[in-house]
């Protein structure tokens, strides 16, 4: 056991004395992580997703509903999401969007409130296109008319008064969110309006409401129109836990690069087995009172320890230099061990299949790049076609990144069981195949 350990430590020392290998194992992934940090806006503070969406509000209505809509955007609930500014001039607001200074402008036209809530002195709301928009003297719904109720001609308008959402096409997500908030407000108003009008029409048809009283009743029902709550379906919201987690894009990029170059490390380690064989040091080791399994185990341990050191250093660097928070330390440690174990399995398989150290170098580099792109080190797997996502399951990169992402999102060891198990199975199966091939090819013979 001691010999096995000594061989492993010796190989670890050899690799860490090789400046060329260190450049590739540590410096390259570190520099690429910095580059990715710039691309994703991590270093310029633009990577945190939706927040502080700049929106311009032009409230020309200046009445109940216009003011209520403006208040929605400056409410406490949306304080983190929206950054509203107001403008009196629709043209200036549109120009602001054209200059890419905000995600959208909301232009609430004059008369918006009055197009829904009847003004003082009107007998009913004037809503073009609705049953209320009838010739004077009649209010109708579904073919039935309430006698006597009349529509004030002053309130009748030829076109519905519409709120304009002037959207910035280069910020589709933010503009979509702004539109959705306006939609939600309008849906509340519309629900209140439908509810109020239905009650009035029904009461008048039942003879329980005089047309003379309709105006005051309508105004009463419309008073809190925008605070309508659906009674038919309730929505039970469940905000689990208390701690908010802001995903750090570098928590994906840094391990992505570490896992990419881990594949180089494990193939480099495998190359040392064949190099020792061709240089004659391996047969010399095997004639010493050291068993074949101890020698092979020591070599594998050396590769494993190197991989652990490499990934560990890179993950530590991501915390120290970029402030990435990994949360559960135990989960992180076990995940690193499992990821390196899975990758080492691949390294041993390549070693068992190759005939020369140069072949291992070529196959190892190719596999590093193929696993890198298939496993999500370059591009998030969610953006890849389904067949690539399926194929990615054979890479330690995909499982490792799955685990690191879970950790970065606040997950703990129990949440990591799937990737850890997959990586351990991967490593064990590949080791098994490699040992069979080693024996068949006589690589570890004296």
């Amino acid at each position, binding site marked *: 056991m001691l010999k096995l350990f000594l061989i492993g430590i010796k190989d670890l020392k050899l690799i860490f004395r090789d400046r060329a290998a260190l450049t590739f194992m540590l410096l390259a992934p570190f520099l690429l992580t910095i580059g990715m940090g710039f691309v994703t806006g991590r270093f310029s503070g633009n990577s945190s997703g939706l927040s502080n969406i700049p929106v311009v509000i032009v409230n020309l209505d200046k009445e109940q509903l216009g003011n209520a809509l403006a208040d929605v955007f400056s409410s406490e609930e949306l304080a983190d999401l929206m950054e509203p500014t107001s403008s009196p001039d629709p043209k200036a607001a549109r120009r602001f969007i054209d200059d890419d200074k905000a995600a959208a402008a909301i232009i609430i036209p004059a008369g918006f409130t009055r197009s829904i809530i009847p003004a003082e002195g009107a007998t009913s709301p004037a809503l073009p296109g609705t049953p209320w928009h009838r010739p004077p003297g009649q209010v109708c719904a579904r073919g039935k008319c309430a006698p006597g109720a009349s529509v004030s001609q002053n309130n009748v308008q030829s076109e519905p008064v519409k709120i304009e959402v002037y959207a910035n096409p280069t910020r589709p997500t933010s503009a979509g969110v702004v539109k959705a*908030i306006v939609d939600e407000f309008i849906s509340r108003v519309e629900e209140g309006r439908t509810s109020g009008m239905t009650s009035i029409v029904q009461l008048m048809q039942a003879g329980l409401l005089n047309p003379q009283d309709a105006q005051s009743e309508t105004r009463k029902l419309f008073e809190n129109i925008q605070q309508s709550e659906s009674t038919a379906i309730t929505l039970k919201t469940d905000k689990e836990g208390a701690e908010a987690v802001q995903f750090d894009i570098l928590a994906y990029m840094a391990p992505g690069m570490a896992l990419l170059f881990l594949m180089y490390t494990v193939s480099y380690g495998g190359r040392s087995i064949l190099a020792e064989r061709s240089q004659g040091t391996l047969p010399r080791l095997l004639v010493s009172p050291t068993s074949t399994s101890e020698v092979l185990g020591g070599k594998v341990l050396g590769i494993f320890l190197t991989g652990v050191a490499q990934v560990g250093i890179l993950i530590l660097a991501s915390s120290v230099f970029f402030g990435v928070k990994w949360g559960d330390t135990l989960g992180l440690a076990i995940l690193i061990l499992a990821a390196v174990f899975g990758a080492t399995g691949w390294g041993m398989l390549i070693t068992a299949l190759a005939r020369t150290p140069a072949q291992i170098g070529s196959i190892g580099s190719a596999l590093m790049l193929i696993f890198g792109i298939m496993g999500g080190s370059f591009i998030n797997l969610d953006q890849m076609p389904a067949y690539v996502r399926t194929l990615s399951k054979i890479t330690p990169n995909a499982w490792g990144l799955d685990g690191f992402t879970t950790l970065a999102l606040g997950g703990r060891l129990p949440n990591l069981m799937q990737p850890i198990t997959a990586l351990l199975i991967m490593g064990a199966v590949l080791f098994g195949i490699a040992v069979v091939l080693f024996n068949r090819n006589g690589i570890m013979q004296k």
Partner: protein
Amino acid sequence: MKKIFAIAWKDAIVRFGSSSELLFFIILPIVFTFLLAGGTPSGDEDPRIPLSVVDEAKTSISQQVIDQLENSTAVRPELTTREEAQSQFDKRRAEVVLIIPAGIDRAELQSGSAQMELLQQPNNINATVAERAVLTAIRRVSSSISAAQNAVKQRESIQPFASDEEKQIYFESSLETAQSIQKDAPERVTVVTGNTQDQVDYDPRANSSAGQLITWVFIPLFGISALFAYERQQGTLRRLLTTPSNKATFLLGTISGQVAMALVQMLLLVGFGILVMKLNWGREPLALFVILLTSALAAAAFGTTMGTFIKTEGQANGLSIMFGMVFALMGGCWYPMELFPSTIQNIVKILPTTWAMQGMLDLVLRGGGLQDILPEAGVLLGFAVIFFSVGVWRFRYE
């Protein structure tokens, strides 16, 4: 001339001595070009926030809610099972999950006992946005029933119903009225798309084709340094001293051979771009040749200079790949340059990859011609002159 050709031929034989070189020469570049073209966002993707929806009711009401969500500008409903949704939510991969339980139908809505569940990650802005979108969808589906329920309440507060039957008739009548009112409701919001100019000039196929071409051609050209280091380590460079070949012949033979191989590789990748990715690489053949040649010369010159600083082949191999990848990333070959902060965009102008990428995008993305790529070609030629000068000046046989 014969010697130069012989040296170049020898290098080609050494390089392609192993069939695995073909992996790096053509197979992997094509795989990367293809996958990155499909895997990088094109701007046409659905930008809405994903909302996992579990529909256990499978009724017309639940379908109406899902249809309303489909029309939302903020969320994109993705149907899934409760187990999958819960698992994704537990792993925090799903920010928000809407569960429509079994039994949600008109009768349940009428009785007022219908309830849907929304799981939200805590203090999550996307989840807050999704909640509003879900509320909108629910209101649109249920508002006529809510209105009818409210009308019944209003009526009851004025004059109680004589029987349950009368109440039900009043409810049905109110529902019909409410549906009629709802149907005739006008659109109250209009969306006008602004005239904002997109700052990011990007097409995933063109960017991937040009970017991967540069990445996979520049790395072996930087690898000229490894070639020098190998020959120096093996002592073959010293042996050249005993032959009637001078330094210029050796350098010209080595570099021209590598540049020629790079041009062949580039043409193969351009051919892939034209035939498979349907890119318009061949519109201006002269301009294309100029930008490919100057790019290859700049990269080869950089490799030559590297070769005079690096001692071992191992170091050279590692540094070639590292510089190749870092230069490609920072030069905008993997992701659009416009994503970088403006300071970084200015700094990376010192990299040949930046100019090569801009030149190639001028041709394949922006439809430019020879005139348009001359500034980039000029800068690349300037790189080539500077680095070749340093390389030749510092070149040593031992």
